[in-house]
């Protein structure tokens, strides 16, 4: 289910891997259309995908009764991606540092790190229930906008 308007896209989807793919694909199109180069588009797409995976897997835990909502907005200077779930909530401060020597061989815990690495701003908001991740990437300064 999508609702495109000028510079804004809203998706409300089931908690499935197909939804992750749909969100990923929409993010890639938006980043590419906004003028980001291939590498930046790849990074943005990967960050949004990781946020969607978090929402489906860790947030909603594939619960068919819970939805994942993605709201993408291009405000002219930045791309803003909001991905939210209806799960138990996530405390970002409780996440272990995946770069610490004792965590390097852990099989999990790198998703939020990748998101933070690839985006300019990352914010968490508790929804009670659920978590909303807001990812912001500033548009390249080319001196002219489409």
């Amino acid at each position, binding site marked *: 289910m999508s609702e495109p308007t000028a510079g804004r896209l809203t998706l409300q989807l089931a908690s499935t891997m197909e939804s992750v793919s749909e969100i990923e694909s929409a993010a890639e199109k938006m980043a590419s259309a906004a003028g980001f180069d291939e590498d930046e588009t790849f990074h943005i797409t990967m960050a949004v995908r990781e946020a969607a*995976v978090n929402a489906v897997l860790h947030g909603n835990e594939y619960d068919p009764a819970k939805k994942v909502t993605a709201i993408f907005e291009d405000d002219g200077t930045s791309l803003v991606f909001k991905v939210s779930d209806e799960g138990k909530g996530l405390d970002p401060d409780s996440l272990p540092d995946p770069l610490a020597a004792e965590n*390097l061989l852990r099989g999990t815990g790198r998703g939020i790190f990748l998101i933070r690495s690839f985006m300019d701003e990352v914010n968490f908001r508790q929804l009670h229930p659920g978590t909303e991740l807001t990812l912001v990437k500033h548009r390249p300064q080319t001196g002219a906008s489409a």
Partner: protein
Amino acid sequence: MALTIASREVDGVTVLDLGGRITLGEGSVQLREAIRDLISKGSKSILLNLSDVNYIDSSGLGELVSAFTTSKNQGASLKLLGLTKKVKDVLQLTKLYTVFDIYDDEASAIASYK
């Protein structure tokens, strides 16, 4: 788009030629099962050829780490060959580049097991 895995033997080394994406779900599961299968058959030298892997997510990274530790715990040696730029960048960012033995060419990788 899904992960493809083909196995071959080169001088006693089992080379897994991977292609596509290593991501949460099918790709990660396929890789996990392939490694388990090799370990159960007694393979001690495993080389993952990632030349045709164009995407890896955090789950895929976790699966590579698990493959590495599982192999090590079973007395096997797992190394990586032929990283694409995107995969290499992510491994460097997450410091996993320091964990694995990584080779650019197959001959050097095979020779490293001797």
